[in-house]
Each structure stands twice: as structure tokens, then as C-alpha cells.
């Protein structure tokens, strides 16, 4: 139960209205805010897409580099094996010739 003094306070604190243009200002601010948030969202998406592309490109490049290195390794191994084979055949022939001369 309120006494007279509390009623007086209630009267002093009666509701006040904002200026007539307040509603229009809030609506305009809400539109600006929505636009800005949309722009932020688009920026976020663009960044996410760019980052994904970077990751995919980087991974593809890494994979291709690995394939190239493996191929180069295989090629080098094959050349070495051939070289050894050729060398061992030649060495065998030389050794046979030397044995033949000595005998």
C-alpha cells in the first residue's frame, strides 16, 4: 500500500515520451545496422572462401610436389640400377679379357 509521499514520487516519475522523430531515427538506425551486419556476414563468407581456397591450393601443390619428387626418385633409381648393370657387365668382360691374357 502506497502512502501519499510514494504516490507523489510515482507522479514525479510518470512516463515520458521521446521526441516525435525518435521512432523514425530508430528505424533508420536498424536498417543501417542490418546493412552493416549483412556486409560483415558477406565479408566473413568471402574470407572463409578465400581461406578454404588457399588451403586446397596449398594441399594440391604439396601433393603434386610429392608426386614429382617420388617420380624423380624412381627415375634416379632406375638410372643408377642401369648404370650398375652396365658397369658390372663391362667389368666382367674386362676381367675375362685380363684372365685370358694372363693364361
Amino acid at each position, binding site marked *: 500500500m502506497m*502512502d501519499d*509521499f*510514494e504516490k507523489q514520487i510515482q507522479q*514525479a*516519475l510518470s512516463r*515520458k*515520451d*521521446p521526441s516525435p522523430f525518435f521512432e523514425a531515427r530508430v528505424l533508420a538506425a536498424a536498417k543501417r545496422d542490418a546493412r552493416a551486419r549483412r556486409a560483415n556476414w558477406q565479408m566473413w563468407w568471402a574470407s572463409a572462401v578465400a581461406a578454404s581456397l588457399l588451403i586446397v591450393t596449398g594441399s594440391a601443390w604439396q601433393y603434386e610436389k610429392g608426386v614429382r619428387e617420388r617420380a624423380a626418385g624412381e627415375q634416379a633409381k632406375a638410372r643408377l640400377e642401369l648404370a650398375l648393370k652396365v658397369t658390372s657387365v663391362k667389368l666382367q668382360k674386362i676381367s675375362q679379357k685380363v684372365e685370358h691374357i694372363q693364361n
Partner: protein
Amino acid sequence: MVFSIAYHFLRERSAAEEVAQDVFLQFHRRFDDFRPGPDREKHISHWLRKVASHRCIDYVRKQRTQPASGLAVSLEDAPPPSVAGEPADHFLNQRLESLIASLPEKPRMVLILRYQEDLMPEEIASLLDMPVRTVKSHLQRSLEMLREKIGRSMGNIR
């Protein structure tokens, strides 16, 4: 409701409109959180009052840290307005508004929510995140202070 809380708390129309605009923008952003239902309006009112109260308190605290603020002037020390020829009620209201504006933030907001929004101490406690007994104590002390100061400057009206 939102503007009025801000106006009585800040006692400055442009600042109150700024705070109210912020509250409505935040409401606009979170509109989808308020799902349709029987308590939707009640929920929205509670949310608006809560955010408005906290924003007002934050606004004053922020202003206090900035020099040359218009709000830094103590309204309590301002002379009573000259209202020769106007009804005594108007004079009393103005004096009361000034005295309420001179209260510390929390008790001031408690008083505004109690007498402007007609809320019970339990509801105020929930809005301001404080115990009910603190709300009651703020109310009691603020009323005592107001009665004493009004009584001193205008004669006892009890």
C-alpha cells in the same frame, strides 16, 4: 517504457534517446530469440527493462570516466526551479525529480523501476541481479532520504 526509464535515470533527453535507441537495436538483433508463446510479451517487457536498466547504469559510469560531462553536475545541489504562479505539485515534482537524480545509480534505478514501472521488489531484484533484501533496503533508505530532504526544503508532506 524504455525511453522513460532512461529519461528519469539520466535526466537528459538526448542521452535517454541514445540509450533507448541502443536498447531497441539490440532488441531488433535478438528478435528471433523471442519465440511466440503465451508469455512472449511479458518476456519481451522483462528483457527490455533489464537491458535498459543496465545500459543506463553503464552509460552514467562511462560518462563519469570522461571529463566535461553534462551529467557530472549534481542535480541535488541545483537550486529549486523558479515556478512562481505554478501549482505546488509541479514544484514538488521537479524537486523530487532532482533529488531522485542525485541518488547513486543502483538505488535510483530501484526507485524508478518501483514507482515508474510499478514493479515489486522481487521483479526489480531479478532485473538488476541483486538480492531482494538489497532492493528493499535501497527503497527504504532512498525514501527516507527523499522524505527528509523534501521535508526540509518544502515542509513535511507526510
